[in-house]
Structures are given as C-alpha cells and as structure tokens.
C-alpha cells in the first residue's frame, strides 16, 4: 500500500523550490484566464514574487548536504548554482517583457507562464543524475521555448523562427534520446553514477559499468557519446548544431532571445557539465571510464575551437545588431567549452565563472538592444548612429558590456576568460588557448563597431525616449560588470564551492 512516509516528506522538502515554481506558474495561468488581459502588471508582479520566493528557498538550502529526492532528483550545490542563475535570468527576462515597447499582445499571461514552464524544465534538467529526467527536463524547456519563439503569432519572422527552432530542436532531441537508448542498452541503467561504476551506487536489474562497455563494444559507446553530445550541442548552440541559433534569435521577440541566449544556454551547459562530470570524473569512477573521458575531452576541444571561430567570423559580417549578438553568443559557447576540455575541477570552475560573467554582460547587451529597438524600431548598426549622445548612460553601459564581451580589463569578462586560459594552460592545451586569443581579437572588430556607430557617426533625427527603469537596470549591470571584474572573489568562491560533483584531482 502507498503511504506517505518520512522519506516522502523529506523528498517534498528537498523539492520545495520546484514546487513553488510550479504553483506560481499555475496561479499565473488561472489569473490570466480570469482577468482576460486586464491584470497584466499583477501577473508580472506575481511571477517576479514567485521567482524571488524560489530564489530565497534556494539560498536557504545553500549549505545543505547533497541529497537525492525520490531517487531521481539530485539536490546539490551544483544544481543550486544553475537554479539560482535561472531565477535571476528569468526575473530579468520578465522585466524585459514588461519594458518592451513593441510588445502589444494581450496574452502576456501565457508569456510568463511559458517562461516559468521553461524554468521548471531547467530546474529538473540541471538537477538530476538520471538520464530520463534529464531528457524530460530538456524537452519541457524546449517545448516552452518553441512556443515562446513564435509568440508573435501575426509576425512572419516570429512564425518562421518557431518553425526552424522546432525542426532543429525535434531532430536533436530525437538524436539525443537515441543516444541515451544506446547507453541504456550498453549499461542497463539510466543513472549516471551507476554507469560510472561509482562504489555504492546500485541500479535496478542487471547493470554493467561503462568501463566494461568501453572495452567490449567501443564502437557503440562512441556512437552513443556522439549522439548525446550532439543533443547537448544543439541546446548550447555549438557547431555543427548552431545553424538554428542566428535565425531563431533574430526572429524571436527580443526578451525570448535573451532567454534563449542566457538561461537556456546556461541550462544546456549545466546538464552537459553534470553529464560529463558525473560520468567521467565523480569520486570513485573506474580508471577505464575516466580515461575514456579524456578522449571525449579531445572531441570537445575540436568542437570548442570550431564553434568560436565560426561564431566570430560570421558575426563580423552582420548588419543587424541582434544577429551579431546571436553569433557572438555562439562564439561564447565555444569559449565556455574550453573549461570543459580541461576535464578537471579547475576547468569546470572556470566554465561556471564564465557563465556567471556571461549573465551580466549578455543580459546587459540584450537590454540595450531592447531599448534601442523600442526607440528606433530597427536593429541595424546604422540605426544606432549618434545615439550615444541622445542616451548617454545606456550607451556608456553598452560600451562596458562590449569591453566585457571582448574580454578586456577591467571587466568580469576579462576575469572569466583569464580563468579559462589558466585552466587550459594547466592541462597544456596550448593550441586551444592561442585559438581563444585570436578569436578574442577578431571579436574586438565587431564589438567596437557598435561603439563606433553610437559615438562617432552623425546622429540621425531620432530622439531617445527615456525609460528610467531600463536605464537604471543597465547602469546597475554595467556597474556589476566592472565591480566583479576588479573584485571577483565572491563569484569565484561561489562557483568553486558549487562544483561538488567531482573528485579532487
């Protein structure tokens, strides 16, 4: 008979952030149905309040021991980092939706509901060692994202973006599920820890550690790895699965683009780091599995180099700032992968630090884009001409974000890139460091171009309409970008303590 035991209650306690988020999203849905489009501000405030409550619960649970709820959901500091990251990113995206001048839809309630739904997907995706739950979380995130990309139903570009997104997304989800099925066939389990042969982790039924599978059928293991990494590559827009990114980023509403570029990408990295980390590097992993991990690292190194080069070269010849930022976000995925290649705790720390840096600078850059799109109705470089003098605070903040995106001091982006280079240097992956440096120089060209149009071109006749909340937000983000660039200790300590998956090596 089913009875509620202490174990269940403990599971519910561990899952309280997720439960809060689910409840709030349902409340929003009901409010939207009852209010018929009249209580938009109230819905937005409820969403923000729900996110704040979730974040509070996450912070309160920060120092708890790692635990597993219902045998599926791993509650640990690593997941906590990405869940807090998601809460922060979602709050900013909701703020963007509220301050989007071009947003005239009366179905905003659904917008927030889909955003929070995607957030719930992220929570489960980054917080599990079980491949079934990982796939389900990823799909919940993806399905919400498809609908969000096509949110402007009457706009051709939005509809096209959604279509391209679901075609690529569906394909890569299928490919990933197929890879998972092979891995299940080889090892007899879906639990990453059991696969890795970690002592004490026991699966149901007859299980084989990956170590045996690697020696018995290397071809099948390689196929499974390639297919699963392919699925992850799509989520974090890594070449050769990045083709959807520019089109979808350009066609989707700007707040949705922000969500895809920041929250969705970080979630993909969270799941990827956990997959690689738990499978190949957790304490007690068998030698053969760890050695196999190093080979996977070689593959990731090539992906990283190709991705950053493709992203930067394509960004050079864009006329639309939004599309340029899309390619820039592809390039940044390549930079973050450098941390994965190092295959040790320092590398994973660096990847997470860079993600934290990416949060500040990319949210800032997209906020700038949203503001100027609201003023001029265009997204081209030309439309920015001379606007630096019309909206000085916002433009100067943008210059700070651009400096940080390029990776120049004194900015958090510089610090993040430096940490990545250190991690790779320790492992002697020098060719990748050189590639990263060359790419940073390339990226300088297109980032400077924005500043040039803002400050050195003849102003157009457009007048900037002030938007105090957005200005305040951007100035605050720029301030944080500089502050954490000069004093990164808090970020560094947070990311380093969050990496509790791995054995110290």
């Amino acid at each position, binding site marked *: 008979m089913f009875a509620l035991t202490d174990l269940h209650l403990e599971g519910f306690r561990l899952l309280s952030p997720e439960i809060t988020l689910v409840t709030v999203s349902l409340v929003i849905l009901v409010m939207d149905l009852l209010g018929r489009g009249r209580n938009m501000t109230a819905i937005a405030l409820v969403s923000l309040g729900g996110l704040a409550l979730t974040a509070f619960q996450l912070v309160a649970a920060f120092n708890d021991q790692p635990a597993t709820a219902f045998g599926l959901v791993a509650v640990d500091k690593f997941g906590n980092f990405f869940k807090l990251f998601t809460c922060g990113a979602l709050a900013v995206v909701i703020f963007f939706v509220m301050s989007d001048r071009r947003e005239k839809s009366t179905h905003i309630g659904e917008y927030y509901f889909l955003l929070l739904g995607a957030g719930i997907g992220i929570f489960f995706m980054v917080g599990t060692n079980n491949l079934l739950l990982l*796939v389900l979380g990823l799909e919940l995130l993806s399905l919400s994202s498809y609908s969000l990309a096509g949110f402007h139903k009457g706009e051709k570009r939005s509809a096209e973006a959604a*279509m391209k997104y679901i*075609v690529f997304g569906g*394909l890569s989800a299928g490919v990933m599920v*197929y890879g998972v099925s092979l891995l299940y*066939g080889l090892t*007899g*389990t879906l639990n990453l820890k059991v696969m890795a042969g970690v002592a004490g982790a026991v699966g149901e*039924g007859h299980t084989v550690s990956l170590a045996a599978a690697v020696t018995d059928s290397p071809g099948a293991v390689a196929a499974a790895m390639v297919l699963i990494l392919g699925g992850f590559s799509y989520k974090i827009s890594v070449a050769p699965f990045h083709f959807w990114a520019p089109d979808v980023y350009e066609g989707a509403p700007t707040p949705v683009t922000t969500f895809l570029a920041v929250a969705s990408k970080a979630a993909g990295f969270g799941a990827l780091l956990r997959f690689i980390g738990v499978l190949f590097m957790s304490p007690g992993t068998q030698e053969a599995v760890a050695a196999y991990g190093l080979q996977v690292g070689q593959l990731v190194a090539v992906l990283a180099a190709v991705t950053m080069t493709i992203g930067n070269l394509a960004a050079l010849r864009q006329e639309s700032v939004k599309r340029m930022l899309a390619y820039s976000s592809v390039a940044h995925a390549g930079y973050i992968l450098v941390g994965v290649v190092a295959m040790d705790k320092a590398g994973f720390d660096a990847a997470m630090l860079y993600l934290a840096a990416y949060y500040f600078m990319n949210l800032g850059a997209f906020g700038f884009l949203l503001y100027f799109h609201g003023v001029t109705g265009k997204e081209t470089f030309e439309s920015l001409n001379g606007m630096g003098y019309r909206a000085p605070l916002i433009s100067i903040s943008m210059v700070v974000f651009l400096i940080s995106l390029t990776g120049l001091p004194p900015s958090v982006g510089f610090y993040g890139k430096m940490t990545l280079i250190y991690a790779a240097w320790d492992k002697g992956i020098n060719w990748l460091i050189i590639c990263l440096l060359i790419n940073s120089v390339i990226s300088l060209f297109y980032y400077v171009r924005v500043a040039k149009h803002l400050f050195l071109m003849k102003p157009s006749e457009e007048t900037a309409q002030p938007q105090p909340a957005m200005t305040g937000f951007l100035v605050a983000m720029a301030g944080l970008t500089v502050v954490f660039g000069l004093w990164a200790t808090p970020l560094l300590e947070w990311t380093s303590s969050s990496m509790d998956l791995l054995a110290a090596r």
Partner: protein
Amino acid sequence: MIPVGAYVAVSVALFALGVICIVSRRNIIYVLMGIEMILNSASINFAAFGRYNGDGLEGRIFVIFIIILAAAEAAVALAIVLNVFHLFHTIKPSEVDLLRE
C-alpha cells in the same frame, strides 16, 4: 528468443529513415514524421533492452515517456506549422526563408 541484435537492426534502420526524411526537407510534414520515426526508433531500443535487462523497469518506463514526449511535440509543432501556413500560404521549408544571411 529473438536476439537483441535484430531489434537494434530495426531501430537503426528506422533511425536512418527518419534522418533521411528530415534532411530531404521537401515538406514540413515529412520533417515532423521524420522526428517521430527517430523517437520511435529509440522506443524500440528501450523496449528491447528493457526486456533483455531482466528486472529493470527503467527502459519500459522510458518508452511510455517517449510516447508522451512525441505527442506533446507534435501538438506544439502542428500549431506552429498551422500558423506558418496562415502567414506564408505554404509549408515548404525552402519557401519560408525571410531570416537568412
């Protein structure tokens, strides 16, 4: 008992057909069918491996979830395709190309 290799052979064939269906890209409905075929090929794998894995239920549970996933994905995909058809009056991916370099 049928050897597990036979099931894998069928699923690999179905997977390959699905990929071909997507890559040829004549019509968006073909593409969606291709995605379904890939998901179903994974289902075959999970069911077969679950059967040969003894007591473990994980594989068979995964099959049920894949069916749900496929249904949810088809619902969202068809809504999006319907919207594209309203706006573009075509569902050929090659003719829906406002967003490009």
